[in-house]
């Protein structure tokens, strides 16, 4: 098929088992297991792959899985899927596997997880870590807009209850949760309590990206990437995570990071916010859901707290969010796995594979990564058909 008529789609996904610890597993064994699972899901084999994206492990995997000559991706998180789609659509590769996995990395439990600890000289000596960085964004919003502790608890209780019902979640069966349960958990970094925060766990995941034109030879219906966008304000955890950090376009502060990205994604897809059936929002901390609902224009600025309080985001609501339990309850196996798992959950929802948490008639999913504590946001719109 001529390159110009290609449209990339997600044709296979797989999560390995996720757990607080996976004894005997390494990041490599989980990555290979995830690749095999995603290929099986797609009905493809290793011989079909001619591209891989695996952060800094991609080149080694090309060698050790004998994939060469192959295209090599360099992005992280959802950016890996965006980059893989671009590679397929531009003819740089036919079938790309995107993979991330982590085990046996967070072993010193006296400190917070290693990926949360900044090393920068203008941050580290003041004891910041991811929870504190995101707390600085949340506190500013609470002071300026009156967002309440109760509203944060509504978010965390909703997402953790989703995880409670998800048989594949690390914290399956731990709930259901009421807002008071969140507020009663021990304080971590004000306003965040333990249950406002992502967990730490181990696991792997992979996706296969290929031309949708191959669909007839595939095992499952392809899920289309209808649009995507990327917003960065700078490197994470080196500069003050200020809501009001602006570039030369001073209309878009860091607190609204992702607004430009979401506008671009919806523009590419030819869709409106009302077309979205399920929001697989990135949930490193409870407040981040409120911020994204505003930044992505699902509710007016400053009204995200009231929006979640009205029940919109529950699994039966108008805007069901983070339906597998997310980073709080499903899994957080390091940087890229938990980001890619937002996209995988979107695919599961559009395929009708979300089990007890299936959103009825889900045709369009919005998936996101990042957040204002991290100074970046990525947005991806998935659809079960191309409009």
């Amino acid at each position: 098929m001529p390159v110009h008529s290609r449209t990339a789609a997600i044709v296979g996904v797989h999560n390995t088992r996720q757990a607080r610890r996976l004894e005997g597993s390494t990041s490599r064994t989980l990555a290979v297991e995830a690749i095999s699972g995603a290929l099986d899901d797609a009905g493809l084999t290793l011989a079909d792959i001619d591209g891989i994206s695996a952060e800094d492990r991609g080149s080694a995997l090309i060698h050790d899985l004998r994939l060469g000559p192959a295209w090599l991706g360099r992005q992280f998180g959802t950016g890996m899927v965006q980059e893989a789609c671009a590679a397929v659509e531009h003819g740089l590769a036919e079938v790309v596997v995107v993979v991330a996995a982590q085990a046996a990395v967070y072993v010193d439990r006296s400190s917070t997880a290693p990926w949360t600890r900044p090393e920068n000289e203008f941050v580290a000596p003041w004891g910041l870590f991811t929870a504190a960085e995101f707390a600085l964004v949340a506190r500013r919003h609470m002071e300026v807009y009156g967002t309440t502790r109760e509203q944060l608890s509504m978010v965390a209780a909703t997402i953790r209850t989703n995880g409670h019902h998800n048989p594949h979640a690390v914290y399956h069966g731990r709930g259901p949760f009421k807002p008071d349960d969140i507020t009663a958990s021990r304080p971590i970094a004000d306003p965040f309590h333990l249950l406002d925060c992502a967990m730490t766990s181990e696991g792997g995941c992979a996706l296969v990206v290929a031309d949708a034109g191959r669909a007839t030879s595939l095992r499952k219906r392809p899920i289309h990437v209808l649009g995507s966008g990327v917003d960065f304000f700078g490197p994470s955890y080196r500069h003050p995570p200020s809501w009001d950090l602006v570039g030369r376009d001073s209309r878009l502060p860091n607190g609204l990071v992702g607004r430009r990205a979401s506008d671009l994604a919806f523009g590419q897809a030819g869709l409106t916010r009302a077309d979205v059936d399920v929001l697989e929002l990135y949930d490193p901390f409870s407040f981040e859901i409120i911020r994204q609902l505003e930044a992505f224009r699902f509710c007016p600025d400053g009204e995200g707290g009231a929006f979640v309080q009205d029940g919109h985001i529950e699994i039966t609501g108008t805007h069901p969010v983070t339906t597998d339990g997310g980073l709080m309850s499903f899994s957080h196996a390091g940087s890229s796995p938990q980001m890619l798992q937002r996209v995988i959950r979107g695919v599961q929802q559009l395929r009708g594979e979300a089990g007890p948490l299936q959103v009825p008639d889900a045709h369009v999913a919005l998936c996101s990564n990042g957040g204002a504590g991290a100074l970046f946001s990525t947005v991806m719109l998935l659809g079960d058909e191309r409009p």
Partner: protein
Amino acid sequence: MSIKLLPQYADLPHAVPGPLTAPFWAGCARGELLYQRCGRCAAATFPPAEHCRECLAVDQRWERGSGHGVLYSWTVVWRPVTPAFTPPYAPAIVTLDEGYQMVSNVIGADVDQLRLNLPLKVTFRAVGNELHLPYFEPADQLSNSTEVSS
């Protein structure tokens, strides 16, 4: 119950300053809060950069700030990032009078005293073996930063 926010005392994680950042830390050791100001357009830059973030001129000049600012946002950490830190401590973003923001901790205040736009002033503390850290305390408080080495 009022809980007083204190400075840290143990050896803390910190990076070795490079050529671009060493003047800032040397200033801290003297009890001076330095920042860069562009020689061409006068924009303030922090953390330090080789060029002005406003006009891109490579004419960054170190100036001594007043050390006064206001509290832009804060958190109170109860689960420390590493065992080197003693909780509670209060990471904060401070908006300096000179027009830039920096990360620090608020000390010398009660946890309940933290509020938006609380006037603050810098105070330096020798922490661990070799670090002189700028902290911020409420501006209406008499400084007790007598332990600064000069």
